[in-house]
């Protein structure tokens, strides 16, 4: 016999779908089927039960091989490298729950760490822009129920947030949007003809890296002022047309992603996009929302916000919180050799940082808390596997619009495996012992 767990929250991306159904065996041990998830979410759930899953911590030996160690030994190693380091980096925090993030903060305070999360390579530049100009935004339900002009700028939800368009932004029939996608106009700005662009009403195939100019041109077009013939590869007629489309709607929403956060201009691109949104509010209702990547990077930013006052790149090494992107951000710290130990939890910098940073991780005392085998575990000295949040343990996660949803436990973790929170609590206790507090 089987049981179906409903209202399951998917722990993959910032879309944080909470309508999944997971079929488990009657004894609650086997995960059999996943319904309603996208391909990536389904894979996450189903793969969690892979037979080749690593279930015990392991330590790199001199000869390069791995040796299995106990959780106690892993805790000891972790506590030692963190307390002995002058300035350890504690990075990741995005694929885990808020409870674990909170314990991590406590550890960071005791050891004087730099706390950084995956926003540093994702929407960190957006956070910087928000600190300059603010952000008119809304929840995804406002989009579903009201938005009739949807812009995807520098993002490709068909690939990165697969159910976004069907759950929130293009297809649903909401309270004031009973006509579904036929009542909406969709604009995509992307240097490639992405799968998202293919279903758009308008695709502006922008010259890569020229988003700032095009955003600025939109602001000029809103005012009906003069534009050069071509901006960022887009003819001015098209720009005026899109400006008019956006102004003429009842509710415009701009979703944006790495196309603007990671291209040159970076935070200035986002600043310009937010300025476009602000300007639009003179004519109609408009909002803007970042397409957050990991399912709880937003939560990490929230937890650090209320505990330290900053959403990422939080330097606690002097005993109080400091924040200065470019100085306190992970890649800069690694490149300049300014950290002397690394602790990674809930992310994969080995795969997603530039290689020059990864090399630095390899050279330092390092721990990766991670259920999978990844390029990060490959370059760290100790690998601690833990339960999957949202599958084997619950806990709070924040969606891309900052809505907090409690993830569910669907199956038991492998025998004897710790959760992030448990591991961190043990490390915290050991750190306090070592420090004599």
């Amino acid at each position, binding site marked *: 016999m089987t049981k179906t767990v409903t209202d399951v929250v998917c722990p993959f991306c910032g879309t944080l779908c909470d309508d999944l159904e997971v079929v488990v065996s009657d004894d609650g041990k086997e995960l059999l089927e996943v319904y309603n998830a996208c391909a990536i979410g389904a894979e996450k759930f189903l793969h969690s039960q892979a037979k080749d899953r690593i279930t015990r911590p392991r330590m790199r030996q001199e000869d390069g091989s791995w040796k299995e160690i106990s959780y106690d030994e892993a805790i000891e190693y972790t506590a030692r490298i963190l307390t002995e380091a002058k300035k350890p980096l504690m990075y990741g925090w995005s694929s885990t729950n808020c409870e674990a993030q909170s314990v991590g903060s406590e550890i960071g305070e005791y050891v004087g760490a730099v706390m950084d999360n995956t926003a540093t390579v994702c929407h960190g530049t957006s956070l910087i822009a928000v*600190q300059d100009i603010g952000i008119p935004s809304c929840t995804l339900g*406002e989009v579903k129920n009201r938005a009739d002009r949807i812009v995807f700028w520098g993002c490709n939800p068909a690939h990165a947030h697969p159910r976004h368009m069907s759950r929130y932004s293009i297809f649903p029939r909401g309270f004031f949007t009973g006509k579904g996608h036929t009542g909406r106009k969709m604009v995509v700005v992307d240097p490639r003809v992405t799968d998202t662009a293919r279903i758009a009403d308008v695709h502006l195939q922008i010259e890569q890296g020229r988003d700032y100019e095009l955003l600025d041109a939109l602001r000029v077009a809103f005012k009906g002022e003069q534009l050069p013939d071509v901006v960022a590869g887009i003819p001015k007629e098209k720009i005026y047309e899109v400006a008019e489309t956006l102004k003429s709607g009842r509710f415009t929403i701009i979703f944006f992603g790495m196309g603007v956060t990671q291209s040159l201009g970076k935070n200035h691109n986002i600043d310009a996009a937010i300025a476009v949104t602000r300007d639009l509010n003179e004519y*109609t209702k408009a909002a803007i929302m970042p397409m957050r990547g990991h399912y709880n990077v937003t939560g990490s930013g929230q937890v650090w916000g*209320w505990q330290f006052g900053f959403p990422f790149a939080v330097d606690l090494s002097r005993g109080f919180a400091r924040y200065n992107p470019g100085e306190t951000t992970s890649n800069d710290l690694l490149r300049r050799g300014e950290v002397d130990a690394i602790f990674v939890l809930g992310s994969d910098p080995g795969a997603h940082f530039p290689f020059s940073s990864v090399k630095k991780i390899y050279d330092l005392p390092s721990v990766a808390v991670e259920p999978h085998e990844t390029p990060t575990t490959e370059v760290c000295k100790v690998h601690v596997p833990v339960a999957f949040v949202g599958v084997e343990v619950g806990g709070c996660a924040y969606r891309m619009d900052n809505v907090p949803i409690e993830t569910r436990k669907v199956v038991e973790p492998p025998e004897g495996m710790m959760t992030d929170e448990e591991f961190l609590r043990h490390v915290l206790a050991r750190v306090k012992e070592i420090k004599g507090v």
Partner: protein
Amino acid sequence: MTEYLIKNGFVFDPVLGIKGDVADIAIKDGVVVETNAVKNPKIIDAAGKTVMAGGVDVHAHVAGPKVNIGRNFRPEDKLFNTRPGRGIERMQGGFSVPTTIRTGYNYARMGYTTVMEAAMPPLYARHTHEEMRDTPIIDQGAFPVFGNNWFVLEYLKNNEIENAAAYISWLLRATKGYAVKVVNPGGTEAWAWGLNCENIHDPVPYFDITPAQIVKGLIEANEYLGLPHSMHIHANNLGNPGNYTTTLDTFKLSEGVRPKSRFGRDQVMHHTHVQFHSYGGDSWANVESKADKIMDYVNSHDNITIDLGQVTLDETTTMTADGPFEHHLTALNHLKWANADVELETGSGVVPYIYSPNIKVCAIQWCIGLELALLAKDPMRVFMTTDHPNAGPFIRYPRIMKWLMSQEAREQQIDAFKHKDKVVAATHLAGIDRELDLYEIAQMTRAGPAKALGLGEMCGGLAPGLAADVAVFDFNPNGPYAPDDIEKAFSNAEHLFKTGVQIINDHDIVSNGNKRTLWVNARVNENPQVMRDVKEKFLRYYTVTLNNYEVSGHHYVPNPYVIEVDATQ
């Protein structure tokens, strides 16, 4: 549990009616007890010092999504004021939007022990609870917002009070909320389309209900349920010259309604931060104080309570569920603007603001708040707040005490205004020589708010049986003192007890306490209609499922204090 005896202090307690007499206060098992009930107490020498119950803040924005927007989008708010942890204290930061850790400590240092989070968007309730959980020492509760909620708009359009009450009861339980909060009724739903409701008869787009209907309906539903607190409102038209008429119109919606609550409150409407709603004139050029008109009404209608929203003349961060107001403000001062509309429920906006004594309007605002307090006939119905952080950070409460207690201090500030003459001409403050005493302050900051919140049986006073929330300040009310001594003493409690645990000893924080989250569980008769409406709206319009909406789980509310209300008659 340790017994304490606080000896020989000058006690100010409106619950017992003690007006500065020397008296002893005994603490045992977490509550205040008769002095002969303690056998072997630790003696706290309070000779020459002031003793009061722990402060009760009826309205402050200290926990939740818009507060955190304020923190995250203002790194500059942490400049030069972060503090390393030491001893029992964790690191702290932030001036106008302190971190939750600092919030708990700063309130404790002022002798406050209970703080109500002024507005909680229901969809974000978990966030509010996570922040309250991480705020040490002080008991807290949060007010979910109802004034722009689609269920409420639809029920009240058809005057379905019982349904509205059933929904309120359901939502309070789902969000672990404390009271019915109303912000810019109807206007924030209009703002979801970029519009607003500027007076109480302006209909809400599509829903076609007026703010007046919303407010009246919610008052009725609140009394139907008999909740501990009354409906708590931030009326339409905040911040605009001439808005005092909207305020009086709003007040009048409560006329003839008596409270039906066994929790001891006498009011059916609490209007918050009335300073922002007391403007005459019709432009910034001729804006003037109408605090006198406002207080004429408040003084003669005992079923209303208000709080000040006192401007403190600081650089601060405004944040409110009055979304359209914040858009208006950013157009005025061109500072960064954040906005967050919430599906089916509410919205919010955040904009930094600098209240400069060199700006005429800011100075007028400063006068108005103080006028409201000084013109009050009944300090048990007029509470001291800054609508933190909107009119200023809550750490300025002792400074406001100084202004209320010392005409000299007020005159000093008035003299320092760049446009003093214009300010004086537009306000009444310069002509008021009343100075409040500590008893009246205790009414405005302890006994009054506790009673209005329906917590009179729990806190706000020093009567035996009440929670042992007691503060001792190094201030001799009979000795000679300079006005600044008031601010200094009440910013730095010498001792503080919370539920009988010593939190501050000799000015040092020695415990992180065991804070409680207060919420109200109002039981109503089963209402299949409302449950069906709820199910349907979640299925069709919300973006979370019904089963994922309710705040449940020990990690959100680790130490709940549930107030049961039986509305099933």
